[in-house]
């Protein structure tokens, strides 16, 4: 099964190890992973900033770059949503492109959703041991239906103890460019998320979207918490003790 990896620009820049962990998971699930070389960003920052033209240009670029694979897998619910649910909207007025957007939408998946529901992964490559709490990122949860998939995967690791936090489904305050435009509000919302996450007693906060994770980690450190770990689900599922 040929699977193309959409790395996402945040993973490319900030946490390449999430990209490699994703490849490891996909290969463990029996996939033949390719990484289209010219990929950059899905265009969500432009779309959510109201720049339709820039969003459309990037949508077309992604559509062109990801032809030919059976599936496209993204280690981010939010970027996967942009490709699956927003591209057809962005390109609604261009029939040819719209048809191609719809075709791509049918084979793009968020990582955990793909592992559980498409590849039906058996044994995970990691053996992480410790207590974790899972933050449900907004777009993954509410637009892509990512809720049970990461928990199902965590449950496959015998060393993992899942301690659910209060309000796991509440926004962490990241919101893309919102985090910079309204930094103080964003950080104040992040403080609540950190409070709930830490109150769960888990040693590691896990999530599926790097934006949220950078927000949560940045707030924890500013608050003086040096011990709570913040990890992407792909890192946890591939971690070797």
């Amino acid at each position, binding site marked *: 099964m040929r699977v193309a990896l959409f790395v996402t620009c945040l993973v490319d820049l900030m946490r390449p190890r999430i990209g490699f962990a994703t490849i490891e998971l996909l290969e463990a699930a029996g996939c033949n992973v390719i990484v289209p070389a010219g990929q950059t960003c899905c265009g969500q920052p*432009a779309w959510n*900033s*109201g720049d339709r033209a*820039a969003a459309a240009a990037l949508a077309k670029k992604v559509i062109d770059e990801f032809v030919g694979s059976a599936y496209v897998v993204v280690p981010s619910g939010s970027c996967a949503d942009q490709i699956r649910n927003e591209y057809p909207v962005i390109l609604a007025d261009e029939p040819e492109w719209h048809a191609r957007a719809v075709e791509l939408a049918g084979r793009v998946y968020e990582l955990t959703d793909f592992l559980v529901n498409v590849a039906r992964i058996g044994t995970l490559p990691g053996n992480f041991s410790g207590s974790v709490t899972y933050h449900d990122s907004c777009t993954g949860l509410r637009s892509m239906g990512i809720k049970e998939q990461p928990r199902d995967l965590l449950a496959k690791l015998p060393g993992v103890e899942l301690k659910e936090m209060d309000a796991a489904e509440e*926004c962490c305050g990241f919101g893309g460019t919102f985090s910079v435009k309204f930094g103080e509000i964003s950080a104040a919302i992040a403080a609540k998320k950190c409070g709930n996450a830490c109150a769960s007693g888990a040693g590691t906060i896990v999530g599926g979207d790097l934006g949220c994770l950078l927000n949560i980690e940045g707030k924890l450190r*500013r608050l003086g918490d040096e011990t709570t770990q913040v990890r992407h689900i792909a890192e946890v599922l591939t971690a070797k003790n």
Partner: protein
Amino acid sequence: MESRSRHFKANAAASLANPVLQANLKTAKGKFVDKRAIAIKEIDDFEGSREAAKNIRNRVLENLDLWLEKFEETATARGATVLWAKDGDEICRLVAEIGQRHGVQKAAKSKSMLSEEANLNMALTAAGIRPIETDLGEYILQINDNEPPSHIIAPVVHKSLDEVADLFHQVHKTPRKTEIQALTREAREVLREHFLTADMGISGGNFLVAETGSVALVTNEGNGRMVTTLPRVHVVITGIEKVVPTLEDLTLLLRLLPRSATGQSISNYVSVLTGVKTPAELDGPEHLYFILVDNGRADVVGTEFQDMLRCIRCGACMNHCPVYQTIGGHAYGWVYPGPMGAVLTPLYTGLENAIDLPQAATLCNQCGVVCPVMIPLPELLRKLREKQVEKHLRPWFERFALKIWARVAASPPLYALGSWLGVRYLKWLAGGQDRIPVLGVAPGWTLGRDFPAPEGETFREQYAERQGKR
């Protein structure tokens, strides 16, 4: 009400720095969110009900003029007078004229957000009519030097018990009380006199029923009944979008509204008021006026923002909004706060007068999933952002940054170079630490948190290296 939405950032900063407000917001959030979650479970098919409610509201909006004509016809047949107001000034003029015609000196008001849009109390006072707010929350705000409400159904949610106790003590010149029951009794004693002496009652309207010419009011304190039945003149002020076709439609919306708003199965009072007092009836107004208000609504009909007019003013979107929960309603600067306000304020007061509001949302869509009439609030906020870009309303540095970013992201070689430089710059900034305390290129981020340092090489670099070795 004059908009202060232009000062959103300063307003929000003040809210964040106010510890009393922060504590009050925390208490309020728990009450609204938890109670709603329990109440909606009483409905077997809540999602199906939302869908049906959305369809009822859409059916009206598709032929709004016809439903309004129908309402005018049925209401008039029951002895009411239907008047139309283009904007806030016309509301004020019409109410003052009605007051003068009937020799009104005092008007008792139940809650009406339209009267906030119009700044009606000030106009009434100028016309020699004394307005008395009788909703407890609105009353508290009125005696606190006409403070604006911070929530559409719980106008005084930003205040603590202690603050109200101080206010009553100062204004009523009575011994300070701290028990809620004692405070409400005190308010009731003050208000009772006004109910009995008011010549005019002014109310809002949750819904207008076209088939019967009725107004439906959803209230909890009983003041709505007093205001609409005791005075000889009753004036209903409501938006033109509030009409629903039938009583049957109303019953569905009534199943959703209180549950979404306060988490009640039904509000303490639901009044459906039709026509003037007939000779056979003992109470009710002799004169009934409907002032149906446009104030920006008609311009929204038929546009990509029409979905917003489905709103039934429950407040669930703000109750569940992480931004509203963090800064409260006053920061939004006009009558309507939270996600619905962030859409309505620019639509009604001008895109350029509320430049921050559509941006001040994480687009988490918690508002969208709780909205009882399924308004896609994040989508509307995003469309407003698109309008801002089209009209060149965004600040130059943002436009510049977006342009540069779009150019780089569109070109793989430029992106490779830019990301290569970018991660090295960030790594250097971190100076061997795992975090960056002050980020010059995006100072907003590090105002209240650190920025985690990057690994140091991009994925594409590392991947190319690994491929080379294979």
